[in-house]
């Protein structure tokens, strides 16, 4: 159970690193100074490439490869954008990084910006992260004062500055092209791809866009070397990853583990303290709410990209939502369907109309008006919605419900037959606590 704290640096330091001095004392900005003094931009890019670091926002695309897609000789200026619109249900890792290690993110952005030749970075932060935006804003001011942002940073010839931009609370703006639209001041809706952001992103210019955790991993990689980092974890899933565990566990929270060396069982039952006494594990969405659900038989799956894929789900954002046997899978599916219907931007037909339809069918089931043919209808709709849209939101809406119907079909059938689901889990827990 190798818990290895790299990105959550404040845990090693034992205190929040919200002051520049504290961060420097904890070894911060050593990587940036060394890179700017000793490494060409291409060498930094190569290090990112060699490290095998994969995007931690959900898609898991190798960061170095993505960065290498930016055209080298484009006449337009390049941009680095940090996706801090952490809205995936069950995910709160970026939040801890921004709150406790804001300079690590800023340092990672400066390094990534240097690697791709960008002079301007943006942090697009979720509207609800009020406190975190203030922490970041203060960190940006301190970093400027300390010479780590602005003109000729860290006494080099490289200039880089960061603008903090607050979103308005739309889940869709975590999708990279919708985020760019929103950042440009437009309605947040995904763009048609290609062109990909690397070619025509922010203001139609070459843009590298990465998640907070991804960028916050960069200083460690430069500091300790790409080979050291790549040696952690498995061949295709190197490094560490922060999992946010929530739901029916006794110690919810963020846990940073070496990929591939920890199983889901260890994460849930050891790190997160296990379930409430007398409860049995029922289901788990290991990568945020947009991934297929896992059941008891999957508990020994190692936590890395390939193993989770093999188990039929995704590592996603690492937002691990746990449900014990007090929960009703049909109700949980309805709750998710409601979320995706509410957050669908409405651009693509299958998502706009399909998420609402899914919700209404599940609502009928929960209301005792389900029909047996609704199960077949749900299955037909999954295929009509999933894989048919511009972005992954609709796929994220389908995946947990489709997998729930596959793994827990008996429960769906029972709900339809009996005409009512079991009580809300929280109600039951409250009753138990009161009794």
């Amino acid at each position, binding site marked *: 159970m190798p818990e290895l704290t790299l990105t959550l640096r404040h845990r090693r330091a034992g205190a929040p690193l919200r002051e520049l001095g504290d961060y420097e004392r904890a070894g911060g900005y050593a990587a940036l100074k060394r890179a700017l003094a000793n490494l060409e931009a291409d060498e930094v890019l190569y290090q990112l490439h060699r490290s095998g670091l994969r995007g931690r926002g959900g898609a898991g695309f190798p960061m170095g490869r993505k960065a290498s897609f930016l055209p080298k000789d484009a006449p337009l200026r390049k941009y680095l954008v940090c996706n801090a619109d952490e809205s995936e249900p069950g995910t709160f890792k970026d939040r801890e990084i921004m709150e406790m290690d804001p300079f690590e993110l800023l340092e990672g952005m400066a390094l990534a910006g240097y690697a791709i030749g960008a002079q301007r970075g943006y942090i697009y932060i979720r509207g609800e992260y009020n406190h975190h935006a203030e922490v970041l804003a203060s960190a940006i001011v301190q970093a400027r004062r300390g010479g780590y942002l602005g003109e000729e940073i860290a006494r080099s010839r490289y200039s880089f500055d960061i603008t903090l931009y607050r979103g308005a609370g739309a889940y869709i703006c975590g999708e990279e092209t919708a985020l760019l639209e929103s950042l440009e001041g437009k309605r947040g809706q995904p763009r048609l791809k290609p062109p990909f952001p690397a070619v025509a992103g922010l203001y139609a210019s070459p843009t590298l866009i990465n998640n907070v955790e991804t960028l916050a991993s960069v200083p460690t990689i430069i500091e300790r070397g790409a080979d050291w980092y790549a040696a952690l974890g498995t061949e295709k899933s190197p490094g560490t990853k922060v999992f946010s565990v929530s739901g029916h566990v006794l110690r919810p929270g963020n846990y940073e583990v070496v990929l591939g060396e920890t199983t889901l069982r260890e994460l849930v039952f050891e790190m997160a303290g296990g379930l409430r006494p007398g409860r049995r594990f029922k289901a788990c969405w290991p990568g945020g709410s947009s991934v297929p659900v896992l059941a008891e038989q999957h508990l020994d799956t190692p936590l890395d990209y390939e193993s989770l894929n093999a188990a039929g789900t995704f590592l996603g954002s690492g937002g691990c939502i746990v449900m014990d046997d007090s929960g009703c899978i049909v109700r949980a599916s309805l709750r998710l369907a409601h979320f995706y219907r509410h957050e669908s931007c*409405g651009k*693509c037909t*299958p998502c706009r109309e399909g998420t609402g339809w899914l919700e209404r069918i599940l609502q009928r089931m929960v209301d005792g008006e389900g029909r047996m043919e609704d199960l077949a209808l749900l299955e037909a709709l999954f295929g009509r919605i999933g894989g*048919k849209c*511009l972005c992954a939101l609709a796929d994220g809406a389908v995946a947990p419900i489709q997998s729930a119907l596959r793994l827990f079909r008996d429960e769906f059938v029972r709900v339809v037959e009996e005409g009512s689901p079991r009580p809300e889990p929280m109600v039951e827990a409250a009753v138990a606590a009161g009794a």
Partner: protein
Amino acid sequence: MTRRAPRSDYARIDPAAPDAVSFELNGRVVTAPAGTMLVDAAWAHGIEIPIFCYEARIGAPIGACRMCLVAVDGLRGLTTACSTPVAAEMVVRTDTPEVRAAQDGVLELLLANHPLDCPVCDKGGECPLQDRTFRFGPGRSRFIEPKRHFPKPLELSPVIALDRERCIACFRCVRFSQDVAQDRNLAWQERGPRSQIATETGEPYEGRFTGNVIDLCPVGALTSIPYRFIARPWDVFNAPSVCHLCPVGCNTDLSMREGKLMRVTGRPEPNPAVEEGWLCDRGRFAHGGEAADAPARLKRAILREGSPARASDLEAAVVAAAWRLDTAKAPAVLVGPDATVEEAFLAQELAAGPLGGAPLARLGIPGAALAPLRGLAGAQLGELDAADLVAVVGGDPANQQPVVELRVRKARRRGAAVVVAGPRPTALDAVAEVLRTAPGRLAEAMAALGRLLEAAAAPIVLWDEADLAAEPDAAAALARLVAAHPGARQLELAADVNGAGLRALGIPAEGVLEAALEARVDALLCVHADPLTAPGAARWARALDRVATVVAIATHESPITRRAAVALPALSRYEDEGVLVSMAGRAQRLRPGARPADGAAAGWEILAALGHRLGAPVAHRSSREAFEAAASSRLAFTGLSYASLGVSGQVIGPTPAPPPSGAGAPAEPAGEGLALVAMTEMFGDASAWRAGALAAWRTGAAVSLNPAEAGRLGLVGAARVEVASPEGRCVLPLRIDAALPEGGAFVALGAPGSGAEALLPPDRHAVRVTLTAAA
């Protein structure tokens, strides 16, 4: 007159273009130019890939509706054919079970919340959603929940109804407003299933081109209020025609039911050289004022043999008119700016034959100084797409030749630079480099314009007929600039609807007025001409005092029909056949979209009957024959016939130009005071005032001044002012407008009864005006 072919929505491509590549489509090897979108390439090869959001005229595809999913070898899953360019060796299938399931699936989802109120929906029968559901969709719905509801319908504007329940969120209307018309008024509000169309401000959707969203809407969400519940597509017959309300010559489609014109829409097959399927709101909604029963129509022939006037049947009135002309010692003929080629040609034959060589002129601008410009290489509007610089010299095309504005904005979107030179603030200023000149001093802009032209490879200069006729020095300088540039072309922003056609027939703009002023005309035949409401009205009023008899052939009542001894009602342009020549020299056919008004006859028929009564029966028994006779005797029309004009027209040959005169010398404005700048408002002329549908938008006569200018003249606070030029005077409401430059009095022309035309000389020579507060 035909049933309308369904709007196809696909961009036309040439599969045999030199840069075509071959690829495999459903097992066939076919060709299309590289980069063509798959949907368009497939359509060209007879395969329909259904679409809703894709509309090549609006801009780059957005891939929102997901209707066009196809299978392309090598790409994971299905891909949107609207956004996938053809590449060599590509293997595409549009008929696999996966593709069919995707099409069926998207339609099932589109229909889930779409109200199935087709029987009462105006779009029913010509609805792409209906049609595509029949071809690609599910037969029945599995959606058992109550559908989404919105209060319906809303008046999006006085002419557009919005039914949000029917909207399928294709974004076409919003993109049109944002990207094509760029009025930026329509927006997409709320999100997900509650998404809806609205205006940014909550106010009605206002603009000059709003009606196009009705044509663009693939469902019944946006429908025409004047056409609401008026007809069903299977009840109407459609005729491809041409708009006669300005010289652009937009190709239109007229829908007729039970003999009445019910609506004007853009063509299902747009003319890329002219309007590309877009219409302005005047062209679309003004037709009501020309209906047979519209109050302003001249419904019966009028005879004034002594007073009082009395109505007559047309036959007797033609006899009376012929007698009047026959007994006149010195008859003359005046042809109006929107007379068709056939009418003008027959008028010429009448003047030359039975009227014994009577003088004949057109009511329009002589423009001798414009001949050098007109002689230079000309462009069609569609060619603006390939220009790298568009220069607008004088005028205000957004109001005068509205669709030109859309074509210029498109050129701008495609990367062309735009420059606007002139004294008026115009809508195009927002996308242009503006060379603001003092009123009457267009020549000032020529040096800067010359530099911009030099830097461009393929510039097109749009120049205003009236402004440059008034400034021969600027016309000559502009002609030199364009002539000196090997890649430059010019396009006239004409003042008169069929001015180019009348010139091509060899009809001068001078001669009749001068003769009448000297009392050398005792009978005047006016063919669709009302000199009393045209520029020069004051001089014409003096001239007509000396003309004993006026015979007027007219569609509407007007000062000249009230003055005429015999007024003969003619069919409107929506009821008649004929040819109009656009400002770019395109001869295009009018086709009737309404039953002939009772008691009226086609203008050409009245002229032929006059010839017959005057003892010179004409040989041509139809407008077709009249046009063919014109084509065989007028060089510019050589080889043209109704058949060769087809539905999208032909460019006529060069018009023999009179030798240029007056070129080079700056024309000093006549009179004293402020230079008069003639303004035209899109909804400010008689056609807009006659149309009930445009009641909310019409604008009246006015003289507008810069506030500083008004202060200097002591007119602050004056509501109405008397405006006097050396030609005439009139009283107009005063407006103060800080957007206007100083040094000019900006007078709106065209409003019925304003008398503003009396301020201008007939040749549009520049004038100055004095302004005094009126009681």
